[in-house]
């Protein structure tokens, strides 16, 4: 590791952890964004090149870290498009494939689960995935049992592992060469969002709220253990980073207050509580406007959650209403990065440092991201102004946190990570093993659990 980078990494990580914990720090984070789209294309690559060519993406991140060495966090990549292609994933349109090479990749709304399939999802999630949802969302798997469908699973499994390796390499590149930690690792959807975005679609879920409300509640409850277990499987084993949670339909005015409190919040609260009790923190993107619903975040223990506040909501109001419980990120409108001037950025950063962020608990950011079309001079002004106005103390040095151990048996009491073929079945078929059973069993179960979570990877 180049000189001082390990120490720099630890300082930055400790600052990030203390900020989330609402503890005193030396200064505000510089560009503590979760998603930095600007960084992806700053080096001049098209969005297609970034999504298809991991080497270019890594080069883009290196270039960004070199040109803006002050940044405290940088997300190492998101999606490697060939993984989507390997199975024909139908939930996204991709730059250079279905969209012009310089267009953002975009989510496709659709009904991927029928209204009469709730009981299958609730009672037999593996049957639901294998026989109902996956043949619809994975184009290469639509003719189940065909050679092509077997190849899809084979390619999809290999591509998934390959993507994991590439993402790890990118994260290590940022850590070792530039001393930059990750904003999060691992991801989970709110149970309602998994159902609404990836399964029933917007039209379907909205009708279900009126015509089959009990099924919606049961389905969200049934999803909790698997979503939590799979989030933990992809999270940082050292629990240094929060788990990422992009939240969608809690956004006002999608649901009425009663619907939010009936369908959206209870399963999300349960899921996040399980993660917190297992020693994790959470970074939740409150996409859209959460104003009428954000008071619910006060139900969590203090300092475990970071909420990104989007363009539509007022960060000062968020600070007032939930800022004693959760850390906040945001405050700079996307359009200011895109069409604003360095003077405007400096003025806004100064204002936020003197008001909302005066006592800490704030990470300056755009609305859940730094936008693609950010002007470089605006980003430079953002960094400089944060360093100038975001100073808290010369005597405080945040320390790295030591998270508690995951409860034995996994994060969800009574629900160990799911396997499809339990070891007992396999062992019975073998008539027992002659050597060390634990050695065989552990790897069998590890692969079974990963394969199950692979099916949930296609939730969104």
């Amino acid at each position, binding site marked *: 590791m180049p000189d001082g980078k390990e120490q720099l990494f630890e300082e930055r990580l400790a600052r990030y952890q203390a900020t989330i914990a609402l503890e005193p720090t030396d200064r505000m984070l510089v560009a503590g964004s979760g998603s930095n789209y600007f960084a992806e294309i700053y080096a001049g690559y098209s969005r297609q090149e970034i999504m298809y060519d991991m080497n270019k993406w890594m080069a883009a991140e290196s270039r960004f870290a070199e040109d803006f060495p002050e940044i405290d966090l940088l997300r190492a990549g998101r999606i490697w498009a060939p993984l989507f292609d390997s199975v024909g994933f139908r939930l996204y349109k991709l730059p250079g494939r279905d969209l012009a090479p310089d267009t953002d990749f975009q989510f496709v709304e659709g009904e991927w689960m029928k209204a009469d399939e709730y009981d299958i999802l609730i009672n037999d999630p593996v049957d639901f995935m294998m026989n109902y949802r996956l043949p619809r969302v994975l184009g290469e798997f639509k003719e189940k049992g065909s050679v092509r469908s077997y190849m899809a699973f084979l390619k999809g499994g290999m591509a998934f592992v390959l993507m994991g390796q590439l993402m790890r390499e990118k994260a290590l590149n940022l850590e070792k060469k530039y001393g930059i930690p990750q904003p999060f690792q691992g991801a989970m959807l709110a149970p309602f969002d998994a159902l609404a975005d990836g399964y029933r679609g917007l*039209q379907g879920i*909205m009708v279900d709220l*009126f015509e089959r409300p009990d099924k919606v509640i049961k389905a969200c409850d049934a999803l909790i253990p698997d979503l939590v277990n799979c989030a933990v499987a992809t999270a940082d084993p050292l629990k240094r980073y929060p788990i990422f949670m992009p939240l969608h339909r809690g956004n006002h005015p999608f*649901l009425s207050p009663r619907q939010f409190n009936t369908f959206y919040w209870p399963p999300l609260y349960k899921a996040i509580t399980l993660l917190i009790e297992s020693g994790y923190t959470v970074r939740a993107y409150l996409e859209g406007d959460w104003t009428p619903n954000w008071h619910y975040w006060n139900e969590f223990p203090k300092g475990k959650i970071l909420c990104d506040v989007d363009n539509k909501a007022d960060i000062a109001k968020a600070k007032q209403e939930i800022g004693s419980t959760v850390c906040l990120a945001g405050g700079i409108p996307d359009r200011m990065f*895109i069409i604003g001037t360095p003077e405007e950025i400096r003025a806004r950063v100064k204002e936020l440092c003197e008001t909302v962020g005066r006592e800490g608990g704030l990470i300056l950011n755009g609305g859940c991201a730094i936008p693609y079309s950010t002007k470089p001079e605006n980003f430079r002004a953002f960094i400089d102004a944060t360093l100038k106005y975001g100073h808290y103390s010369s005597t405080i040095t945040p320390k790295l946190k030591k998270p508690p151990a995951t409860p034995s048996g996994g994060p969800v009491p009574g629900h160990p990570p799911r396997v499809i073929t339990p070891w007992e079945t396999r062992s019975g078929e073998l008539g027992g093993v002659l050597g060390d059973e634990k050695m065989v069993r552990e790897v069998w179960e590890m692969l079974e659990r990963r394969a199950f979570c692979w099916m949930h990877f296609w939730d969104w």
Partner: protein
Amino acid sequence: MAALTDLTQALVDLKKEEVLSMIEEELKKNTAPLDVVKALNEGMVTIGERFASCEYFISELIYSGHIMKEAMTRLDMLFEQALAADAGEKLVIGTVQGDIHDIGKNLVTMLVKNAGFSVIDLGVDVPAGRFVESLKETGARALALSCLLNIAIPEMKNVVDALRAAGIRDKVKVIIGGQPIDEKVCEYVGADYYGADAPAGVRICKQIYGQ
């Protein structure tokens, strides 16, 4: 007409089964189907007003659309067409090129239609030239541009520039709306109005057409 008022109310209360059985009864009584459609349309106007005043939410709006769809299936699509032909001033709407999101656009379309306008919905990922063509074809004096992504900001400016290049900028009022849009963006794009939410779209259309 009392029964038709009940039908309007049942729709406003989102009671699908009641709405559908009341329609059957009306048809049995030989009530003119167009009157039934008008009663339903009044209900949709009230629902739009409730949405504007935050008594109803997108869930209720979408569910009311679902009930209407089933109702119209029974009533014969002809009447929907008759109603559309009867509709008044025109609005061309679409999500700009590069963005395929349509939730906001669809909400505005629904509310503006309910308010009696005729809406020409060009869909999503619409190139600037397509907006120009449609405005020329229909003679609409109002154009609504929708988006979710902030890449749409420069594209909205392209559309306004295209109107200017086609010589129709002064004949059309441009409304923009979507997640990254505010007054500053409106100024940058050179649009006439910015709608902070879907009900604002209705208010602005009424203003444009002097209603």
